[in-house]
């Protein structure tokens, strides 16, 4: 069911994005990329929470929004200061994604067994 909802939502979102795209100026596309990374982390975190029965819709939503915003802001701030601050977001969310995927994998494997 989770997989079905995820795939359906993703396909719907992509179709909506292709049919009615918002034009993002090239200089901001880096920040959107960061927001995407944060969003991916939040979604994986949500799935993990669901599988471990600790899911909380409020935490899920606020995490998705705030993490995406902070990641984009961090990237912007870094560019203003001349430091590659976006690397912080890339490293943190990147490693967390791996951790979440590892937990999801383990839970699913146990269920199978």
């Amino acid at each position, binding site marked *: *069911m*989770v997989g079905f*909802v*995820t795939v*359906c*939502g*993703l*396909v*719907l*979102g*992509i*179709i*909506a*994005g*292709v049919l009615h*795209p*918002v*034009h*993002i100026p*090239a*200089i901001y*596309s*880096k920040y*959107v*990329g960061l*927001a*995407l990374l944060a*969003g*991916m982390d*939040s*979604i994986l975190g*949500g*799935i993990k*929470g*669901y599988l471990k*029965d600790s*899911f909380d*819709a409020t935490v*899920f*939503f606020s995490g*998705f929004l705030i993490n995406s915003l902070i990641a984009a802001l961090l990237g912007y701030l870094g*560019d*203003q200061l*001349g430091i590659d601050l976006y690397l912080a977001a890339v490293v943190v969310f990147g490693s967390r994604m791996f951790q979440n995927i590892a937990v999801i994998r383990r839970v699913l494997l146990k269920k199978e067994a």
Partner: protein
Amino acid sequence: MMSPRKNRIAFLIALFVLVISFGYLLAVQFEPTINQAYVVPDQNVELVEIMKGLELENAKSVERIVALRSRLNELESKAAATSDEVRLLTQRLQEDRAAAGLSDVAGEGVIVTLGDSTRTPTLSDDANYYVIHDGYLRMMVNLMRRYGASAIAINDQRVLANSPIVCAGPIILVNSSKMSPPYVIRALGEPEALFRGISQDVFFKILTVYRDQFGITCSIQKDVQIAIPASLDNRALKYTKGAR
């Protein structure tokens, strides 16, 4: 505390909404890349065709001008052989042509080379410092005139008093001819005076600072044999007539 069933439904709804927005962002983020790579607006295709046609026409016209000029030279030298008076007039005509920039000239002078930086500016850098602007070329041409240049050319284009040097996006137009870096600016004149005057000018010193800091190309050298092409624009002064 929510019941497990309610919790499950809440999760699925939340997941659905978030995944939709995630997918949307993903598609939007990919969209500009797709557009740039594959989709060329119809209007542009048409304009590019028109431009290519005009460029071809231009190249043919240049060939024709060169051919007609050599034919004219032939006829003139034939006519000059007929009498002393014609020979004198022909000589005068050739001198006037040289002064007006309508004939090839050669001699000693200096060569200034300007080129864009090989480094790529990062997002926080000002990209303007890494490229050669049309204003730099105008300044350099003016400097050369100030230190006594008698004939100037940028790449293959002769620069006359009324030659436009303008910016057109990533390229520079000199006499409406497209130029890309490196810009080689040749000037005939007394090499020592030109070299010393230009290399000690504030503008040239600023360019050398840009060279050291941002990696643009900027060099000046003396040369004893510099060839400068004729202007192809026979009618550059078509609206100028002597006042009576």
